[in-house]
């Protein structure tokens, strides 16, 4: 239980995927312009990321590793899993809940190219993916906890940042810094704040 909690916390705050590891910044800056879209995007990411990790865990453990081809086939295999999954999720949601489908809009297909999904799925199954010294080798349960942590960390930052950007647009800022440049400065300061979590509980 304690191990699961530490895995979650490490993924959620200490190694926050956006501000500390720089993964998935394109969707971060593209989507966080308003509050509602960022909530829609983070819901979609939590959902797809968790499913992708579970499927990739199975693909690695039962197909790639026993056949000894993991090292050079994992990139195409995982990205195909994710692309197929996104397509599948899109069809299911469209069928089951058209309202939710409408709310998510373009964010569902966009998730295919969201590096966070590939990174989270790969790092929880392939040993030494994130840092060569870190051997994850998680069990399915640990891998799921890790992924949910990563996805919630993404949601936390993207929603927080959307709120911040709505305020920034009405702030008096030099003309050449308006828009993206000031957003990057704000992200830099938030990242500085997140660095403060480093070393929490010795992680």
């Amino acid at each position, binding site marked *: 239980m304690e191990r699961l909690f530490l895995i979650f916390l490490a993924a959620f705050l200490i190694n926050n995927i956006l501000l500390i590891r720089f993964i998935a910044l*394109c969707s971060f*800056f593209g989507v966080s312009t308003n509050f509602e879209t960022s909530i829609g995007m983070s819901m979609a990411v939590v959902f797809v990321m968790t499913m992708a990790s579970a499927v990739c865990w199975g693909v690695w453990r039962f197909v790639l590793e026993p056949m000894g081809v993991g090292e050079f086939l994992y990139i195409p295999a995982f990205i195909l899993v994710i692309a*197929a999954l996104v397509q599948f999720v899109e069809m299911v949601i469209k069928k089951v809940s058209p309202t939710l489908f409408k709310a998510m809009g373009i964010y569902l297909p966009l998730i295919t190219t969201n*590096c966070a999904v590939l990174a989270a799925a790969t790092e929880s199954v392939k040993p030494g993916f994130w840092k060569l010294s870190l051997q994850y080798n998680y069990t399915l349960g640990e891998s799921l906890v890790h992924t949910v942590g990563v996805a919630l960390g993404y949601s936390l930052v993207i929603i927080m940042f959307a709120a911040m950007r709505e305020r920034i647009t009405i702030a008096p800022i030099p*003309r050449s*810094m308006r828009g993206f440049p000031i957003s990057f400065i704000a992200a*830099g300061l938030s990242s500085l704040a997140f660095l403060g979590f480093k070393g929490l509980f010795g992680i």
Partner: protein
Amino acid sequence: MQRSIWHDFKIGIIEENPLFGLMIGLCSALAVSTKVENAIFMSAAASFVLICSNILISMIRKLIFDEIRIPIFIVVIASFVTIVDLTMKAFFPVGYAALGVWIPLIVVNCIILGRAEAFAYTHGVVRSIADGIGMSLGYTFVLLAMAIVRELGGTGEIVAFNATLISLKGFNPPQLLQSFPGAFLTFGLLMGLLRKIQGRAQ
């Protein structure tokens, strides 16, 4: 009006620079720009994948069905990324270790899929090569600029391939520039500066 190949080439460098203009492919650029050496490795790897996938996709574009084009693009890109991944692991283990996850993550780099979708899929081979080279140069320039600012500002010297290129004596470097927040700050400030210069030029 038919745009010239020269136009396809140069648009990626300034007007539609993937990082400052289109705002895509940011993650890798911010993460690897701590050292000039890493920036060189990363831009070489990304340029190779971008140009090769542009060539292959524009060659086979008439055979691709519209409905399944994204999976096909991704398979093409993933194959080239695997080539780069294993080649770097074999011949440049130091660079490979420094770049870490960013080599496999080229497969989801938005620049490459974005150009496949927006350009290579609708244009011929020669123009796709021009587009690929232009976009690669645009990416490389920004990455190098960021890396020079961050390495020189953060450590006081630039060390690439076991040689010290520049060394500032008596300069107490602010280590912030080397850390994660420094990447965001450098990028934001560089972008603001560029806009200021462009605004003045217009």
